[in-house]
């Protein structure tokens, strides 16, 4: 049987009494209504103890009525949807919701680890720094295990999140954050101008404090005015209201980030609906109306369940029709808490007393006395009394002498209000101290921003409305709109207030909490200051003040003031810590959006991908591309398959999908001149129909990329790049065409995606290709080595380039992407008599290492032209080209520099490993004795030995020398002989005929 809602008031509030719900908290069922938060529902059922504190496991209850809540953190839901550290004050209930308290062991009421309180003299500021210094082995075995259980918050689900998160993008003329009185007024004003307005409200409902206080606008309850405003705004096509949406970040160029909790209030998201949506909003003008946070009072045992902010007590009373206790005391240093006393009395609740630190309260004190409520002035709270919840408070004078004890189970405290300056401070603005309200205010905001209402330090309702109106009108004008008529702000009864008197610390000897969530006490701040952590940023990190998930929203000002008091400096001199986004916790899932799992990055597939899949290809990631690494047959592993494929190329014919190579069209009458400046070697005189190998440098003289470029027409060159460098080379060409030499008539364009390309290699490649393409003459006279041919393949163009990466007679065939797979299949069919074999990147690598072609492992950004045997090409040039002045530097041409050579394992079948270092004496292998390294290795079925390309100091001078390839990670040493970087057909006769 669920407990009755004993503390639910019979009337009032905005909960839907026709829609009861049942929720489970720590295994027990409780009743409430739709419209409740988890906090209001539990309070209505008399539940005050909601969790245990972070370090000391002290019992904690609800402090606030909003997202600034430091105490009432619970685990929500179960299984994969279990979510730790949710604030009960913002959780909207639904029937069947389950929640559990956190950080208790074994149960909330009997928490064994509350014994931490006995050890609390050791858990002081800087605890981590002081305690875990030695012995080192204790860290993993003892400290981490136990401290993780003792300190910390909720448990993560430990399963993949089943829900979907998405990213939204929006443009707006005016973005307004907060739909309280100032924000609503700003939205009404900007909305009437026709500007595109986005109004963000964290709560599911609009109105802010107007719906939690008993104000009257135009002589009617404020909620009526809110409802009218909502109707007007909803009716405007240019106004978009995002409820349950928090502005979390303010970035450069008025780009904003907001989190919309689309389905957090539902048992689970409906099909097709994301759980949350992270908005990026590009705004012209921004009005921040984010409100203010009430500050707790700092006194001994001020963290007992039952101690609640005065504004929160009022909020639960008015919005949710919940009395958060049975006997109330209000304690304050300003006029605001008197309103709480009046609202409680109006509901017939027992208000034992109002305690005011000031000697002279405002006129509201007389109204409270008129209700028969005791008002004590010039007194402070000495100490909260109680075990699992508040039972009484001790009242003291300003010297700390106890005057009396008053029994109560709910204490409404108010230490004044701190404007929420976190968002505006993200613009880089330094908040200014306002003595009158003892808080930081925004000061002068950047031109695109305006703060209005409580977040600007304006607390009077009439002033808030006027400020909102002015901010909304200004934002509309600033984004280029004209006001058509000015909305009239509603009439408000004036409420003169007496000034606040800050009381940062009541004299006491016990534990007085400043930061509730991280269990930082006054004593911690004093200790940190004594130990030299005097800068506010140091204080924060040493004590962890303000570093919890609530980012110190209720604690920062109290903490700063206490530090200032210790240092006997004015508060503004101490300053604030830096505010950074996000302003409220945001789930990693929301930041990731749809980019998770297989959608983390796009996948690029070639035109022949399906064929590869159908023929058992194993795939390898190459950038975003998926490339076949080999096509294993039954019983084969990668090594066996790739050796069979490589052997097929050497003995007969193979076909390889090389569509991923970068392809760039270079057009224009100056294209030859352009390429001659880009490449080391010249391209102006390349005849049409010919292909040339080219290498290009960066301006610092190191190799950028290499590849073949053909001339298809007088003004049309077709460049190929390595797969990895396709994007980089395109940008390099674009920069030089657009910026460096705009006088050249040249245009470049990526053609990688447009062409499907396959390499056909091996002694039978011509026979195969000629059978596949009977309309073309592929004879040696018509298409010699390094020749290019373009012809009609039957309604589509075919380009055949006679180039070879393997060292065999070989061709590259390019067709428009859509013809890729049919062409591939046609070649496979034509090659069947020769037992054509598809080969993947593994065999491709074996073949090119055998032939001594440099690839990405050799072109690692540190190699010079001379390093890979292009020194003669470089030195022969009379023209100017990119990288020439710095590529000729002595260090890059030094003969002692490691040069690319071939290496062959000798004696035994030990494998080589890329990354192994070369030394002369394996007994003395070190960085100092290293003579170079291996960059690419393969077992060569042609040589029948492990071979490698590597860089060897002195290069050709070491030909024939025996060195040792050492690989200390695996304690491997292999004897290798230095040879020419070419293991097959050294004179190149297979290429020509």
């Amino acid at each position, binding site marked *: 049987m669920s407990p009755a809602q004993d503390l639910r008031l019979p009337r009032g509030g905005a909960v839907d009494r026709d829609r009861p719900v049942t929720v489970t908290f720590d295994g027990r069922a409780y009743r409430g209504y739709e419209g409740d938060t988890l906090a209001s529902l539990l309070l209505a059922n008399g539940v005050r103890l909601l969790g245990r504190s972070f370090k000391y496991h002290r019992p904690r209850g609800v402090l606030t009525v909003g997202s600034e809540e430091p105490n009432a953190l619970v685990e929500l839901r179960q299984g994969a949807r279990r979510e730790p550290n949710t604030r009960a004050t913002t959780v909207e209930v639904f029937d069947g919701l389950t929640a559990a308290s956190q950080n208790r062991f074994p149960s909330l009421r009997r928490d064994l680890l509350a014994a931490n309180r006995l050890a609390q003299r050791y858990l002081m500021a800087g605890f981590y720094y002081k305690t875990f210094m030695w012995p080192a082995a204790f860290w993993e075995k003892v400290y981490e295990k136990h401290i993780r259980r003792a300190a910390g918050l909720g448990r993560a689900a430990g399963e993949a999140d089943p829900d979907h998160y998405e990213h939204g993008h929006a443009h707006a003329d005016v973005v307004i954050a907060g739909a309280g009185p100032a924000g609503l007024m700003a939205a009404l004003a900007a909305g009437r101008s026709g500007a595109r307005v986005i109004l963000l409200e964290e709560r599911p409902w609009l109105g802010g404090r107007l719906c939690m206080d008993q104000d009257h606008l135009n002589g009617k309850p404020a909620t009526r005015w809110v409802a009218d405003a909502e109707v007007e705004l909803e009716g405007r096509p240019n106004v978009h209201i995002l409820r349950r949406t928090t502005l979390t970040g303010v970035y450069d*160029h008025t*780009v904003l980030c907001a989190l919309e909790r689309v389905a957090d209030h539902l048992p689970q998201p409906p099909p097709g609906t994301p759980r949350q949506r992270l908005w990026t909003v590009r705004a012209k003008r921004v009005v921040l109306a984010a409100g203010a946070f009430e500050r707790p009072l700092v006194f001994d045992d001020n963290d007992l369940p039952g101690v609640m902010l005065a504004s929160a007590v009022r909020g639960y009373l008015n919005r949710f029709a919940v009395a958060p206790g049975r006997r109330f005391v209000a304690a304050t240093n300003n006029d605001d808490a008197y309103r709480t006393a009046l609202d409680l009395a109006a509901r017939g609740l027992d208000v034992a007393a109002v305690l005011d630190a000031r000697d002279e309260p405002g006129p509201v004190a007389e109204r409270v006395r008129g209700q028969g409520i005791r008002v004590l002035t010039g007194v402070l709270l000495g100490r909260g009394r109680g075990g699992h919840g508040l039972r009484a408070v001790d009242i003291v004078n300003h010297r700390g002498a106890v005057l009396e004890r008053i029994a109560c189970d709910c204490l409404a405290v108010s230490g004044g209000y701190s404007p929420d300056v976190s968002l505006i401070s993200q613009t880089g603005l330094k908040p200014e101290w306002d003595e009158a309200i003892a808080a930081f205010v925004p000061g002068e905001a950047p031109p695109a921003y305006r703060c209005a209402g409580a977040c600007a330090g304006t607390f009077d309702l009439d002033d808030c409305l006027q400020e909102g109106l002015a901010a909304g009108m200004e934002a509309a004008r600033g984004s280029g709109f004209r006001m058509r008529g000015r909305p009239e702000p509603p009439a408000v009864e004036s409420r003169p207030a007496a000034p606040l008197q800050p009381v940062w610390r009541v004299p006491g000897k016990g534990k007085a909490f400043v930061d509730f969530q991280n269990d930082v006490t006054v004593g911690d701040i004093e200790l940190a200051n004594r130990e030299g952590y005097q800068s506010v940023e140091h204080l924060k990190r040493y004590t962890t003040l303000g570093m919890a998930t609530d980012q110190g929203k209720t604690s920062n000002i109290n903490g700063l003031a206490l530090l200032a008091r210790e240092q006997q400096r004015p508060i503004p001199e101490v300053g604030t810590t830096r505010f950074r986004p996000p302003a409220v916790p945001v789930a990693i899932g929301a930041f990731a959006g749809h980019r998770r799992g297989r959608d983390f990055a796009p996948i690029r597939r070639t035109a022949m991908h399906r064929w590869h899949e159908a023929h058992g290809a194993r795939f390898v990631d190459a950038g975003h591309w998926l490339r076949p690494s080999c096509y294993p047959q039954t019983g084969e592993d990668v090594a066996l398959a790739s050796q069979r494929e490589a052997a097929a190329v050497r003995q007969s014919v193979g076909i390889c999908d090389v569509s991923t190579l970068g392809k760039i069209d270079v057009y224009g009458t100056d294209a030859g001149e352009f390429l001659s400046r880009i490449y080391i070697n010249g391209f102006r005189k390349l005849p049409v129909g010919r292909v040339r190998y080219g290498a290009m440098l960066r301006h*610092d003289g190191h190799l950028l990329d290499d590849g073949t470029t053909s001339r298809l027409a007088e003004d049309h060159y077709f460049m190929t790049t390595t797969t990895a460098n396709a994007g980089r080379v395109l*940008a390099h060409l674009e*920069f*030089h065409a657009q*910026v460096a030499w*705009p006088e050249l008539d040249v245009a470049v364009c990526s053609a990688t995606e447009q062409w499907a390309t396959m390499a056909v290699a091996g002694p039978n490649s011509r026979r195969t290709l000629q059978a596949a393409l009977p309309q073309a003459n592929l004879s040696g006279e018509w298409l010699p080595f390094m020749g290019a041919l373009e012809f009609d393949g039957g309604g589509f163009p075919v380009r055949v380039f006679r180039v070879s990466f393997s060292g065999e007679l070989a061709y590259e065939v390019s067709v428009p992407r859509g013809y890729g797979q049919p062409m591939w299949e046609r070649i496979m069919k034509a090659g069947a008599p020769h037992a054509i074999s598809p080969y993947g990147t593994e065999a491709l690598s074996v073949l090119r290492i055998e032939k001594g072609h440099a690839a990405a492992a050799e072109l690692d950004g540190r190699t010079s032209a001379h390093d890979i045997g292009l020194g003669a090409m470089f030195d022969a040039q009379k023209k100017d080209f990119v990288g020439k002045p710095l590529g*000729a530097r002595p260090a890059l041409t030094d003969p002692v520099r490691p040069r690319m050579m071939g290496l062959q394992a000798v004696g035994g079948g030990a494998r080589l490993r890329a990354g192994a270092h070369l030394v002369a004496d394996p007994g003395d292998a070190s960085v100092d004795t290293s003579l170079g390294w291996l960059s690419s290795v393969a077992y060569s079925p042609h040589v029948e030995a492990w071979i490698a390309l590597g860089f060897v100091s002195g290069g050709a001078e070491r030909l024939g020398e025996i060195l040792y390839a050492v690989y200390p990670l695996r304690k491997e040493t292999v004897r290798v002989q230095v040879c020419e970087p070419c293991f097959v057909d050294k004179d190149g006769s297979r290429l020509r005929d």
Partner: protein
Amino acid sequence: MHRIDCPWCGVRDEAEFQYGGDATVDPAPISTDADNAYRAVYLRCNPMGWHLEWWHHVSGCRRFVKVLRHTASHEIAATGYPGEELEVPQ
């Protein structure tokens, strides 16, 4: 996040662009000696204040845009075509 006014496309997100380096140095020091090339390639100023730089609109028109940006405030005072002179605000 920066919003960059591409002279070809209009105002676009920074995410569409790639930073292209200092726009005050010789973009292609090829017909010069090693000293001049060294200065252009390695000796870059790192001013706190207004800075002329290239931004490549890689996910847009693929044009290089000249941008006058404040390195501390991230304010962008002007953008233009590669050959355009941009005036540094006083």
